[in-house]
């Protein structure tokens, strides 16, 4: 089966600034694919290249096998949900939704009917004749979605569409978007800097930084087996410890923790020497003195569902540990000595 989108060695240069350094990735049909990264990482640029608002400086963009890299945006069967929605301010909601169909030459009754269906899908049938400015942010967001989906694009591009909404609405829209994607079977390419959004909605995620793809994988792969420090640090919270590798075989490594203890963990590198070890704070158990790594509790931060315990290892390295705030949880007080043990899969040896 051909991929929905194939990005092949795409570069994009703005003047003296290189926004994308030869990015390659493939997006499957019917996939909810997310481009995740901090601002300035090139994710929006990549999206704009797919939509046709910018021209690639090098490389190819294939849409179902056809190179579209220099095709005008109006000739690409791809639609976009813009960050600030870009609803046409002089047109009613229904005219906005029907615009793409009008441009494709649909007759008035047909496009009205279709736009009506789309509005029903996003629960805005009652607002058809309003102007976009008369709607709330969340409603505008849904109109933008309906407008982009109405012409049945082969791929839907979403440029941080939830960033302008407040937290509650954002969480509700996540579920709605996911259901919409499953219901329509259209490939969604979603750009965000919010890792939680990416993890909850995506089939696969491409983590980007400084114009390069760092890692592509399912949310679980990205979280559990990050390949490098950037990914481990950007996705979720982590402790990075510098460790000595004692032995390495395939994707397993034996490392020496601060304090001399040896543990086996999965590894993203095949080289011996000193590397960084990522330790997820929620996979560390606080034990009694004597077991595991020795440390002193420095501060306890109350987070509601969790407690964040900041400790300092005997070698001087700071670490954080998450423990659940259950009824029976004993809250360690600052100054107490504790032993830290790593749970199964808590640690991952990273390439740099």
């Amino acid at each position, binding site marked *: 089966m051909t991929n929905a989108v194939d990005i092949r060695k795409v570069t994009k240069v703005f003047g003296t600034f290189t926004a994308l350094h030869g990015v390659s990735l493939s997006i499957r049909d019917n996939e909810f694919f997310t481009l995740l990264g901090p601002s300035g990482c090139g994710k929006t640029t990549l999206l704009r290249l797919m939509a*046709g*608002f*910018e*021209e690639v400086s090098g490389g190819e963009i294939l849409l179902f096998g056809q190179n579209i890299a*220099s*095709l*005008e*945006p109006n000739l690409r069967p791809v639609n976009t949900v813009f960050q600030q929605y870009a609803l046409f301010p002089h047109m009613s909601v229904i005219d906005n939704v029907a615009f793409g169909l009008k441009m494709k030459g649909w007759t008035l009754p047909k496009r009205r009917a279709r736009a009506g269906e789309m509005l029903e899908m996003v629960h805005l049938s009652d607002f058809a004749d309003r102007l976009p400015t008369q709607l709330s942010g969340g409603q505008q967001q849904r109109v933008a979605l309906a407008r982009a989906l109405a012409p049945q694009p082969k791929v839907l591009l979403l440029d941080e569409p939830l960033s302008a909404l407040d937290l509650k609405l954002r969480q509700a829209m996540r579920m709605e978007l996911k259901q919409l994607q499953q219901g329509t079977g259209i490939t969604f390419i979603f750009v965000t800097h919010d890792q939680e959004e990416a993890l909850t909605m995506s089939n696969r995620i491409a983590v980007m930084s400084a114009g390069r793809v760092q890692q592509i994988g399912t949310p679980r792969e990205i979280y559990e087996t990050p390949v490098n420090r950037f990914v481990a640090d950007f996705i979720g919270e982590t402790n990075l410890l510098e460790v000595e590798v004692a032995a390495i075989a395939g994707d397993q490594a034996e490392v020496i923790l601060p304090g001399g203890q040896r543990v086996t963990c999965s590894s993203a590198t095949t080289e011996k020497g000193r590397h960084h070890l990522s330790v997820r704070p929620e996979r560390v158990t606080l034990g009694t003195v004597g077991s595991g790594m020795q440390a002193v509790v420095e501060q306890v931060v109350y987070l509601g569902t969790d407690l964040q315990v900041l400790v300092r290892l005997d070698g001087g390295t700071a670490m954080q540990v998450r423990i659940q705030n259950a009824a029976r949880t004993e809250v360690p007080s600052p100054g107490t000595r504790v032993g830290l043990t790593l749970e199964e899969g808590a640690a991952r040896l990273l390439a740099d």
Partner: protein
Amino acid sequence: MALRSVRHYPGFLAVTVLCLVVLYAPLVVVTAYSFNDSPSITTWGGLSLRWYVDVFTGPEAPRFRAAAWNSLSIAFLAATIATGIATAAALAMLRAGKFKGRSLTFALINLPLMVPEIVIAVATLIFFTMIGFTTGYLTILIAHITFCIPFAYLPIAARLQGIDGSYEAAARDLYATRAQSFFLVLLPLMAPGVVSGYLLAFIISLDDFIITNFVKGAGMETLPTAIFGSVKQGIKPNIMAISTLMLAVSILFVTLSYFINRKGR
């Protein structure tokens, strides 16, 4: 085919260039011909400054000198007075809260822009004739002050509107009297707008032909009316020299205004 940004429209650059050519061609040509040595305006006789010398020392020199003096002194006085009036009005319109008659006052300030120039000219002539006022220098000055007010007001009000009230509040909080907070805080902040308004009013006064022509009375000339009178008998080279000099003054003013605005931003 290269992919172009949605901002790009083919041909718009060409139209812009055409627009600038149309705007500048007559000015460039007249400037060039003002340096023509030939007494005929149709043939080129080499480069010369003779027409500039003629403007200052030729037979028509006294007439032009008097006209230039009238034009410049009226522009100076009209711009100064109009700027003062407009600054006061802007303070009242933007820093004195809402009041009854505010929109009426706004309409009044803008009235000289809305009534066609020729109508203002007719009305002013009728008014001065009726009250038995002798037309001359003073009537020109009064008419100029009146129609310069909105031109001075617009940049001043635009500037004042952009100045947050917290600066004056901070000055008052730090023990400044009302007068001190105006002269030490608000006025310096408004200065670029006031200067722009002044320059605009000056140029507008210098530019006026039709109203001046109606209310000037016999024997009184400003530069535009003197030039118009000469041109009616055909364009002579000394007119082109005067035009070029006035062009230079205008460009000096607009450049000044441009840099003042840029610095003020």
